[in-house]
């Protein structure tokens, strides 16, 4: 396997965990709206854990290996439309993750641990999660179709 293929494999694996795991988590969060208090609290704890220990590192690795691939292959440039879409999507999703999901997830956890239902926060997190998934789907589309390549 060449260096480029190795970088591509690592980039794809990291992106798969980030995007596929995000879709799974959104499913769990949507289902937790009808769950009992114990399960809802467990889902919130898992959400905070996954955000900081799995999705954060996975998105960072997808970014690093993606950038490395662009540097490694002369035919690919940072100015290519599909790369620009990928980088903008990564930046937007990272901002949403760091500035919204991280604090709101912790706030939801605090509400649930205090014995409150956290319905309003859960609804807001679910809505923003759907927007984040749409951003990531556009990135996946750009990586597959490669407009401007």
């Amino acid at each position, binding site marked *: 396997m060449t260096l480029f*293929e190795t970088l591509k494999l690592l980039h794809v694996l990291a992106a*798969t965990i980030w995007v596929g*795991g995000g879709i*799974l988590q959104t499913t769990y969060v949507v*289902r937790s709206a009808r769950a*009992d208090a114990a*399960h809802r609290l467990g889902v919130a704890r898992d959400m905070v854990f996954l955000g900081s220990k799995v999705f954060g590192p996975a998105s960072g690795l997808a970014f690093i290996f993606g950038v490395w691939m662009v540097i490694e292959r002369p035919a690919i440039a940072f100015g290519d439309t599909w790369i620009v879409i990928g980088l903008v999507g990564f930046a937007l999703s990272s901002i949403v993750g760091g500035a919204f999901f991280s604090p709101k997830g912790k706030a939801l956890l605090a509400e649930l641990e205090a014995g409150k239902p956290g319905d309003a926060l859960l609804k807001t997190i679910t809505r923003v999660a759907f927007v984040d998934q749409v951003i990531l789907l556009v990135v*996946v589309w750009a990586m597959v*179709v490669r407009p401007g390549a």
Partner: protein
Amino acid sequence: MSKAELYKFIHVLAAIIWAGGAATSQVVALRLKKADPGHRLGFAKDMRFVAQWLFIPSGVIAFVFGSLLVEEMPAFAYEQTWLVIGNAGLVVALLIAAAYLVPHIRKSIRLMESGQGEAAGATLRRVALGARLVVLILIVIVWAMVAKPGL
């Protein structure tokens, strides 16, 4: 967007949902050892739901649109090593998920609901082993799709 690009997009998206979701489920499952029984039961019910309505349909969609892509691309042939690995892996992973994981998750839910926590725990441990095997197979498939040995 050409027909081949559309097929590839749907194929990749379905594969991401299955492989990424299955790998993430494993991380959550590892945390269950310290979880309270209510969350454990809730997670098992969520797993039954995602296995039946998310992972297995995604696997089937990945298989169907992967096959359509092979038909569409003259350079691809089913006997090429990377496609043999992909098809064989996908079939094995789907069989494990449908014939082993889903029935055992259902069994563990029944055991938990009837208060047989220890038996449910043993069943869930077997489910976790099967699920890890599926994740491993999916990683090999991703490698084959990226490196394309035999093309």
